[in-house]
């Protein structure tokens, strides 16, 4: 007999936690919290130039505005912050490095007053030459974005190059790539470019900071994926004890990496900690146009990929150079670069690898975490190159991929063995769903129809010591509270955790509650990023639930005087069939069990669980090699069936098939949601997204009118989402991360399908109507390859692309 019976455990379709209050609109996000008349509001004065010295800041007129309390400048809070590299101050000190950089903060009684007064702050600058193109910034530029780079603190696994614009350089040197290229039967070299893109979450950044006048304790309410990491970055930045910083993370309206790490919190804190303000809560709400200008972006890149093949069309070597445009800060952006680097082989078995990934500083908004964390970038280039190569060799892109894909036991580019996975079945299914080999007529008159596929791969990209912990509390009425400091930002992790607890304790799902993070009440978790939560925090939650179960069973064993293995947990009831006994989970679990000897035993039952990946070794800085560089990889594939309108350049997607090997589906409703949502986010990025700047570095796309994201009108005819379940060995239930993965392959799959439809290969994202139209026009002039890179004009891009080494 199964000792634990639950109808609401792993794998069940259930109504998700908090969906009821989300539907009603009563769930309170950070901006919805109320603080009463004590609340002050801050507004930011921002740099209008991309690079320059601050000569003077005159805020006397701002101070004259009725209701203004204080104006602060960079020197008032001269602390450096950063997750991996402390290259950021909340406000510019002496020098501005991008259009939009905060130079002053106006604090007032009302938000409108702060905004109006901010316009009255006069700043004098001496403009300096700026650099916007990552290739130029890395190789040819006399402009240094951070001349002080050598003085910044950083973690060991990030390697800034002093006196250059390179914030991190990640290398792979595996096998003998030189020999592989010398002996190759075929060598191909291609370039792909992509601009920075924006997260486009619907809730902009918002935080409220307050410091107690007596204890000095700081409380921060913030729209963040990373309550504990905000706490830790701030503690390190200002030299403050952890226990005196409390971070409360209310529900957030979308994250996608854009609310990971520390974002705006230190800026608000600059005001809240000021002696004249201390004690009062200070709110900093970032309006949309400022948010688009001054929050993380996904890094743009210029990628060059060379590939060596033997006579049998096996990939024998790869040489990657990725110039990531990390903008003004690499404090977080250093790591997606590393993440892309240690997956330089993509989903393929390539014995010889030479890879250089650079995080390059430019005078633009700062690159950071974005759903997929380096892999949509890498794979949007690599999967296009693979497609090009297969066409040049004259074999089917599907067969070429299957022939070269990494199988169990093959080594990744960092030298770790690949685990088992279901990629082959996924490729077959995707190919079948879109009938990839079948040429079909377009559904729209005059349009051209094409099919394309692309593979996805990603490991959770995190430091080796990214840990999680959870507490599971049993209440006296048989309900449960779970403290797990993951941010449920819509992906639905609280639903998954409740299912895990139900699985282990048999208690019905609706009796299990999970609450939003508060560093004062919750035990530590690193961050809600990297598709790690259901895996890493899942381990902790499962362990905590098992801990509760063990305590419960031990107490009932003594209470009923029967061995533990005669007791079962069934749908929230404790039973011993042998003795014919049944008990609800009731006050006993809180107030103690009166044992046969008349003594009370037990007391409130609290379970605890901790987890840290046990065996991760940082790659060697010179070769990128490590026995185990990452915890696991999730693989998948996307197939696109689409049509192109040659007269307008428009692309319409008939059908997408998208599948991933998730190991085990904990919450199918979440999984479907992640696949559907990420697929459209990937389509949107591919077809319409790119931050555009003028020649002075001013953002031209600061709102949803100019920066288009997909609406209902841009949805595909059909999204097929499916998954394989080849279990992961070290995992709570065999599950692997999948939250980010659905965004990796849609863009290259579209690119490949557009080639299939038109014969034109577009090397620059996005594949906007304008660009597709131009590419098709170029095709009529005999150019089948189309490249556009706005900032490479001055390095004679087409000539330079062969000579970057």
């Amino acid at each position: 007999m199964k000792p634990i019976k639950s109808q609401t455990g792993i794998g069940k379709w259930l109504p998700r936690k908090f969906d009821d209050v989300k539907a009603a609109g009563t769930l309170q996000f950070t901006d919805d919290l109320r603080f009463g008349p004590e609340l002050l509001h801050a507004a930011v004065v921002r740099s209008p130039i991309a690079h320059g010295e601050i000569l003077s800041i005159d805020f006397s007129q701002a101070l004259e505005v009725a209701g203004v309390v204080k104006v602060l400048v960079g020197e008032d809070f001269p602390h450096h912050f950063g997750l991996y590299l402390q290259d950021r101050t909340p406000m510019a000190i002496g020098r501005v490095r991008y259009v939009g950089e905060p130079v002053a903060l106006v604090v007032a009684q009302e938000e409108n007053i702060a905004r109006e007064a901010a316009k009255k702050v006069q700043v004098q600058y001496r403009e300096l030459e700026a650099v916007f193109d990552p290739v130029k910034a890395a190789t040819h530029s006399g402009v240094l974005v951070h001349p002080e780079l050598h003085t910044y603190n950083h973690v060991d696994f990030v390697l800034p190059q002093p006196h250059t614009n390179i914030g991190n350089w990640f290398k792979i040197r595996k096998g003998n790539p030189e020999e592989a290229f010398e002996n190759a039967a075929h060598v191909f070299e291609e370039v792909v470019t992509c601009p920075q893109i924006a997260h486009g979450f619907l809730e902009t950044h918002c935080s409220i900071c307050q410091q107690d006048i007596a204890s000095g304790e700081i409380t921060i309410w913030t729209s963040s994926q990373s309550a504990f990491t905000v706490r830790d970055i701030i503690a390190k930045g200002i030299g403050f004890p952890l226990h005196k910083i409390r971070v409360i993370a209310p529900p957030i309206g979308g994250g996608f990496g854009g609310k990971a790490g520390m974002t705006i919190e230190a800026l608000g804190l600059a005001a809240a900690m000021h002696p004249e303000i201390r004690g009062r809560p200070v709110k900093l709400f970032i309006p949309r146009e400022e948010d688009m200008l001054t929050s993380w972006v996904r890094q743009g890149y210029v990628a060059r990929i060379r590939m060596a093949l033997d006579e049998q069309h096996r990939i024998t070597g790869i040489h990657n150079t990725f110039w990531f445009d990390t903008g003004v800060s690499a404090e977080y952006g250093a790591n997606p670069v590393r993440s892309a680097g240690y997956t330089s082989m993509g989903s393929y078995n390539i014995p010889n690898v030479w890879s250089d990934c650079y995080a390059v500083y430019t005078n633009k908004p700062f690159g950071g975490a974005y759903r997929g964390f380096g892999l949509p970038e890498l794979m949007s280039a690599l999967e296009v190159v693979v497609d090009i190569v297969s066409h040049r060799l004259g074999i089917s892109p599907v067969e070429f991929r299957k022939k070269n894909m990494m199988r169990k036991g093959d080594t990744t580019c960092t030298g770790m063995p690949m685990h088992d996975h279901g990629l082959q079945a996924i490729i077959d299914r995707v190919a079948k769903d879109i009938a990839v080999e079948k040429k079909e007529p377009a559904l729209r008159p005059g349009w051209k129809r094409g099919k394309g596929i692309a593979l996805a791969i990603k490991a959770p990209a995190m430091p080796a010591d990214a840990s999680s912990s959870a507490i599971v509390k049993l209440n006296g009425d048989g309900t449960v509270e779970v403290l797990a400091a993951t941010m449920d930002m819509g992906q639905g992790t609280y639903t998954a955790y409740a299912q895990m607890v139900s699985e282990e304790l048999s208690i019905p799902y609706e009796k299990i509650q999970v609450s939003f993070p508060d560093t004062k009440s919750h035990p530590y978790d690193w961050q809600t990023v990297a598709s790690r939560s259901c895996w890493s925090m899942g381990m902790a939650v499962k362990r905590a639930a098992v801990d509760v179960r063990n305590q419960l069973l031990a107490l009932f064993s003594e209470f009923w005087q029967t061995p533990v293995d005669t007791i079962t947990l069934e749908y929230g009831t404790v039973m011993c069939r042998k003795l014919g006994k049944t008990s609800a989970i009731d006050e006993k679990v809180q107030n103690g069990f009166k044992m046969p000897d008349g003594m009370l035993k037990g007391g409130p039952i609290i379970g605890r669980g901790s987890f840290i990946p046990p065996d991760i070794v940082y790659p060697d800085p010179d070769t990128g090699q490590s026995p185990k560089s990452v915890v696991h990889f999730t693989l998948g594939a996307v197939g696109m069936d689409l049509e192109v309108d040659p007269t307008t350049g428009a692309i319409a997607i008939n059908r997408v098939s998208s599948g991933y090997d998730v190991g085990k589906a904990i919450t199918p409703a979440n999984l479907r949601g992640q696949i559907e949502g990420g697929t459209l986010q990937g389509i949107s990025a591919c077809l319409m997204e790119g931050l555009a700047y003028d020649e002075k570095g001013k953002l031209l796309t600061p709102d949803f009118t100019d920066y288009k994201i997909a609406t209902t009108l841009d949805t595909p005819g059909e999204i097929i989402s499916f998954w394989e379940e080849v279990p992961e060995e070290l995992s709570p239930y065999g599950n692997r991360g999948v939250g980010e993965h659905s965004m990796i392959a849609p863009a290259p799959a579209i690119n490949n399908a557009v080639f299939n439809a038109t014969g034109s290969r577009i090397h620059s994202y996005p594949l906007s109507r304008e660009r597709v139209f131009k590419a098709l026009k170029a095709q009529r002039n005999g150019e089948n390859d189309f490249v556009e890179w706005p900032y490479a004009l001055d390095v004679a891009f087409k000539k330079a692309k062969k000579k970057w080494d």
Partner: protein
Amino acid sequence: MPGKKEVWCTVNGKKTRLLAAGNTTLLQALRDIGVTSVKRGCEEGECGACTVILDGLPQKSCIVLAQEVEGATILTSEGLVQNGTLHPIQQAFIDEGAIQCGFCTPGMVLSTWALLQSNPNPTDEQIKQALSGNLCRCTGYAGIQRAVKKSAKLLAPKLQGGDSQ
């Protein structure tokens, strides 16, 4: 308060006083009285997270001035909840995976409500058109599309009943 005017309107069935300066948006005025289901997503009419039903029509409350709503009837998603029971549209959003972060949801629900009032049996294309002013970054709109169709089915008997009277 200097510069602010009293505006009387009906919010979710209750006679309500808003305090509004000349440049106060309806979005801000509603949030000031604690109606926070209307969200500040863009404050320039682009995202739809602040959608309300104003005298029967869906409007973006960030581009309506509060002083314009004197005497008007305003419905927000809180107002769809009756005696602790969610409206069938809200329930359909839950059932069909139309909700992730929930920030766009109140606006999306109201745009659906308005669509089904005027067109109880919309086609896929009509659903897409009606919701194209409400952005969602999480769901890919797939669950939302399912939820609208389900809502139409759930509400059909009710709406038809209403027509026959």
